[in-house]
């Protein structure tokens, strides 16, 4: 085999070089084109449909009387604005109140009621009621609608029985994927519930 470098070969190479230059130019053009083709159609803002902005607990006294509404509203979700907490008034003494909690997304338009979703996915949700101070304990409502398909409590309904004057706080926690068979979890003890917190709100409560 001859290894003399023939002119032929060089010509070939220069041709290759030319091809190369064309390829390079094409690539640059592609690049330039893709950088120019920046379209100005802006993606719409994300609809955070899943977001819980508002938790309302309505306590209705058995045998008539003034209902007490506890509401916790945080319209900017993870944003920095502080939530707005309202309590309509004090609880009366020596009464039994039936409580029902609802979850809403009021940042969406129209407003989304998330409560049915929680009921549908009852197996994966449980509410816990913790109190501090001299308040009596909050217990789960016993209606069948307060339980999931496995007969385990969901806890949207609660019962609060007042006796004398008392003050304290009520903390309502919605746990996603709790361990419903954990020790005392069925009785409303959050200690062994594991899971993750979807909502956690605290209200100041008075019994007068």
């Amino acid at each position, binding site marked *: 085999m001859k290894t003399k470098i023939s002119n032929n070969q060089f010509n070939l190479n220069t041709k*290759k070089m030319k091809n190369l230059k064309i390829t390079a130019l094409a690539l640059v053009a592609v690049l330039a084109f893709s950088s120019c083709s920046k379209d100005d159609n802006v993606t719409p803002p994300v*609809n955070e449909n899943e977001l819980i902005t508002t938790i309302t607990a309505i306590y209705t006294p058995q045998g008539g009387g003034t209902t007490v509404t506890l509401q916790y509203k945080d319209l900017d979700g993870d944003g920095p604005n502080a939530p707005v907490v309202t309590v309509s008034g004090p609880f009366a003494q020596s009464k039994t109140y039936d409580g029902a909690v609802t979850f809403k997304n009021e940042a969406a338009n129209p407003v989304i009621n998330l409560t049915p979703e929680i009921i549908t996915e009852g197996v994966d949700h449980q509410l816990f009621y913790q109190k501090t101070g001299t308040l009596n304990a909050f217990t789960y409502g016993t209606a069948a609608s307060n339980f999931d398909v496995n007969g385990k409590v969901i806890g949207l309904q609660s019962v609060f029985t007042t006796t004398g004057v008392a003050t304290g706080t009520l903390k309502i926690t919605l746990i996603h994927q709790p361990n419903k068979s954990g020790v005392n979890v069925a009785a409303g003890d959050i200690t062994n519930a594991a899971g*993750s917190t979807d909502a956690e709100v605290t209200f100041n409560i008075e019994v007068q």
Partner: protein
Amino acid sequence: MQKRNLTFFLFILFCTSAFSQNTISGKTLNQEQAPLIGSHVHIGKRTVSTDSDGNFIFKNLSAGNTTIHVSYVGYQSIDTIINIKSDLRLDFYLKQNTSTLQEVLIKQKTSSLNKSVLEQKIKLETIEKYSNQTLGDALKEVAGVSSLKSGSTVVKPIINGLYGSRVPVITNNVRLEDQEWGTEHAPNFDINAAGKITVIKGATGLQYSGDAVGGLVIIEPISVKKDTLFGKTILNFDSNGRGGSISSSIHKGNNLGLSWNALSTFKYIGDKEAPTYVLSNTGNREANFSGDIKFTGKNYDISSFYSYYKALIGILSASHTGNVNDLYNSINNQVPAVVNDFTYTIKNPKQDVQHHIAKVNFNYHFNEMTSIALQYSFQLNKRLEFDVRRGDYNNIAALDLELKTHSLNIDYKKNLHDWSIKSGVNTSFQNNYANPATGIRPLIPNYDKTDFGVYGIVNHDFSDSFSVDAGLRYDFSKIQATKYYQKSRWDERGYDNEFSDFIVGDYGTQWLTKPNFVFNNFSFSAGFHKKLSKDWDCFTNISFASRNPNPSEYFSDGLHHATGIIELGDLGLDKEQATKLAVTIHKKWNSFSLEINPYINSIHNYMFLTPVGFETTIRGAFPVWEYQQTNARLSGIDIQTHWNITNQWEHLFSFAYVNGKDVVENQPLIDMPPLSVNNKIKFTKKEWKELSLELKSEIVFKQNQYPNNNFNTNIISNDAFVSVQVDVSTPPPAYHLLSFNSEIKFKTFKKGVTTLAFTVQNILDTKYRDYLNRQRFFADEIGRSYQIQLKINY
């Protein structure tokens, strides 16, 4: 062969006393008397190429014995020693190499220009041991490299205390995208595709980037230059995770004409197990392919490459926490909140990651000393992160990003006598699209980014024992994002004063903004390599790098589920600038070698994430962490030794220490790797089927230098709120791990070799947690595992 000659030649030459100056000239010809144009003539340290008549000339040569080496592709080289006394005329007649074309055409391809830094290399046989693991695991072989983990599958390299955007990973000459943001983005790379891995500690790899404040990981694929065809299959089984992988590759080499490589890897692993429980939902799957085809001509080559990486990675169930109380419970209970039976199933949270790379290269060699390389590459990343969500949302990704990157590189290289020069330009365009269908405001917004860089590096050998290199790089970068800010967040961040001109639209509770930033950066590197004596080497390098804030540092805004914190970026961040001084002393005795590498890295405007307080949301209280800047100083030392005790026994030792300090606040930096000491004893016996036995001990000390970021939260206990401390700062205790590796080789087929390896990791089933694992709040590290590897070469 030629390469070896050349190296040998460079080493044996000593600049002899230069009293008289002589000239040597002549011709190189073939046996038919035709001149060999562009053949190489080396005298001493100098090299010339012959002109169109085959002529060469060397002036000002010192008298004395010197080696002459003449080479031309396709011809047998001439090596001879002559005694120069006066001017000489020498004509060389080269004989044609008829048997095989053994010469390697592209000699300079992988050689580095940064001779003032001792690069750390991981060889193929070591890489193969990690066939079933990740790139991050393999990189820990290098002293001073540790890993930042999220669980056991998402592993990012840390070089001398720095990670993420500060450590670009270059694979096959392409800068890997989508591995920089957040700790849970690992490099999308199949370790089986690596032929050689080089770690450069510091910002000296200016041909790749000017922002490698921490260092560079450079991965080169397996490439075969001989005319041959061979294949390799590696089968792995791991008892921990009850799964394994299979990786097969075929390589067709050729020094002229067509050559190609193809590789595919599949991995299927179930839940990993800690010593006392199953790490639920930590399985993973991978399916990777890469292939390239190359045509090599006389003085050019053209190649195209494509690779596809797909991984499905389960994220520990217990690490999905809600608010501060959940985190407090997890840290205090020391047991994961969710432990299920072993399964292969991967549920939410999980990551579904895809990475395509396509590229074309063209290299042209003007002659053996001068070449130009062109490369166009395209990367497409699709990243889906699924979280535990209610109802149908569970099937919708919580984060859905699509990142496209085009880049074009032109590199020019020239070697001239004792000078070598490299320079080039890179330009790239990147687009990120965050799909709004997730129903969750994205952590990373839509953006367009344009980069342009130009560099020049020069190396000069003053003598055989002293060489100097210097490099300069300029980078232009422009980023334009489109992002919705909640008005409440915009005000809380105080953006209205400085950034109100970014606002382009009003969407009720949100501003539509188009933040826009432009950067002009310079970076440089300079240093020298001095041979103090035959077996003492000293490398000294100083480098200066600038890194721009990345999209997560600028734009993060919201709750980060993986960590249970609200992460806030800052539009007011400025670029980070690092000056690093590194020295490496290398000493070789007969059977012992020692390498000591102290360094100091002073970083102006060091960006880091730090806790600043709380925000109350409907989900309870969340700690708020924001990106801030300070001036930092990282100093440390890496030590490695290698001792060939006897022919059969070897000992390897490595030690790494780094101290990171916030010099403004005068406190330690967060997430600095603790002191680590590794010892390895290896026994090999060639006669016994190349038996190799290896026992490795890895000691990781407790990090005592950490900032206190603990905070308090209220929990209800006995009908009253009690304030408790959430300890997110205290590093876990020290740990010691032992591992064992054994290997034997069999001859199979005609020329094939089959290797059978058996490995035990964490022999003592030690229960431990690692400071640099983001899941240390939730679960222990993995326990003992038995691994079997079968490697077949054919």
